[in-house]
């Protein structure tokens, strides 16, 4: 409860404050207005012609911006606590005619006065993504980067479902989905993007319905096909980040070799039983999938989730770790898992982190590996043979 002893009230009692309607008249006549909010708040929206000095920098910078201490200065923030404290500070510094704007930019907006909004975000988007833009590391710029990003998900299954939902919620502007499977009732224990009433529907169409219901900002591109050597370059070339949730080794090696050729970052995870692995491969900056696993295991050591079982919650966790990597890559913040392999054991709830080094002798990204000539760009070795797998499983057991 506010009392006479509330220091904020004392500050407001000893400075001059003017209503927002009066501020608007004065500004129209040329009185200068200083916005003392933080950078991310300024980025989101501000008064046209305002001078921006975050509150912590006022004491240091006011001299230079307003050398005449008799100048009339209006100061505003979001409401009026920070601006009141700054006016108090200005008067201590000798400014004779600085006043705070009651209600700040919130009152300004409520009166319907014009604001300059951040480029690229509509009023609905500013609201929808406000919890992102409030984070200084993301801000409006980071959100715009997400809205402009194109991310391809390989598989709309156990890993791809949670990844796609969270990337869609985050506002990744274009999400491509590669899957040639249809929703089966046995998928629903973990593939949370699909629903009981969409059993039998193509997974890409089912996922598209869920994503569009969640966020109309997202364009979903359905690739209702199986990734192979004949279509991979065409499929991945338009995307900024590839998320690998494939269920077999031939596809993983093919994807690696193609993404190294096109220098696309890949967030790669795999799951089995109660355990998951995840890493991020950024071609030539860090190791590639083949630096980590030069040779695939024989088929008897590489069971599928369909044959072995998988804990649905664990799949969800690994998918979200992939989404987390994607957001960091797109916004350009934090440390990715490039050069690190993270193992998760859901029974023990333990994470183990292992170092992954670039292999200078890697046949794909090594120092002595010749550049692939343009005319051979679309030619790949026989990965089914390389992996010793049957030519193709009749239908993914998923």
């Amino acid at each position, binding site marked *: 409860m506010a009392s006479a002893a509330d220091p904020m009230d004392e500050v407001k009692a000893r400075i001059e404050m003017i209503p927002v309607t009066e501020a608007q008249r004065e500004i129209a006549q040329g009185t200068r207005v200083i916005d003392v909010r933080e950078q991310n708040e300024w980025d989101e929206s501000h008064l046209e012609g305002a001078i921006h000095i975050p509150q912590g920098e006022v004491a240091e910078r006011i001299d230079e911006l307003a050398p005449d201490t008799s100048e009339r200065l209006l100061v505003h923030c979001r409401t009026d606590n920070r601006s009141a404290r700054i006016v108090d500070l200005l008067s201590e510094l000798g400014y004779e005619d600085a006043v705070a704007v009651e209600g700040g930019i919130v009152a300004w907006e409520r009166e319907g006065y014009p604001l300059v909004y951040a480029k690229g975000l509509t009023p609905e988007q500013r609201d929808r993504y406000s919890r992102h833009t409030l984070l200084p590391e993301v801000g409006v710029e980071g959100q715009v980067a997400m809205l402009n990003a194109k991310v391809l998900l390989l598989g709309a299954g*156990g890993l791809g479902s949670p990844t796609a939902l969270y990337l869609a919620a985050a506002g990744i502007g274009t999400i491509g989905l590669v899957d040639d499977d249809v929703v089966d009732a046995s998928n629903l224990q973990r593939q949370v993007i699909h629903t009981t009433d969409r059993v039998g529907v193509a997974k890409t169409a089912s996922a598209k319905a869920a994503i569009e219901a969640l966020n109309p900002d997202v364009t979903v591109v359905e690739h209702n096909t199986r990734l192979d050597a004949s279509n991979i370059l065409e499929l991945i070339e338009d995307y900024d980040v590839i998320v690998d949730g494939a*269920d077999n080794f031939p596809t993983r090696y093919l994807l690696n070799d193609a993404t190294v050729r096109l220098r696309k970052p890949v967030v790669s995870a795999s799951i089995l039983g109660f355990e998951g692995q995840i890493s991020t491969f950024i071609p030539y900056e860090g190791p590639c999938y083949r630096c980590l696993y030069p040779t695939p295991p024989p088929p008897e050591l590489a069971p599928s*989730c369909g044959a072995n079982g998988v804990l649905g919650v664990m799949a969800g966790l690994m998918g979200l770790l992939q989404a987390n990597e994607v957001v960091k890559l797109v916004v350009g913040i934090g440390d990715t898992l490039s050069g690190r392999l993270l193992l998760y054991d859901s029974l023990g709830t333990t994470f183990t982190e292992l170092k992954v080094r670039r292999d200078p002798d890697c046949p794909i990204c090594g120092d002595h590996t010749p550049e692939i000539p343009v005319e051979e760009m679309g030619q790949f070795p026989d990965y089914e043979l390389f992996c010793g797998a049957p030519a193709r499983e009749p239908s993914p057991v*998923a």
Partner: protein
Amino acid sequence: MPSANVKIPPVLRSQTGGEAQVPAEGSTVGDVLSSLVDAHPDTREQLFSEDGQLNRYVNVYLNDEDVRVLDGLETAVDDGDTVVILPAMAGGR
């Protein structure tokens, strides 16, 4: 003799009686893996080729470092170290 904890991947657990972590003695990574194979003979053919080399599709880490960038199977082991056996996994669905 130093004793290490060997972390067993899911695909090898049927060869270790279901154990996810097995203690094994040895002063090098190779010795530790030999102790493991002695105690659980079914792991031999998964880990080693016929000429006694580690299979190429099996990654082995001493603590968090790949033994390929250390001294391979000759890498010295301290008491209480962790040896991680890691074959690639492909499940995604």
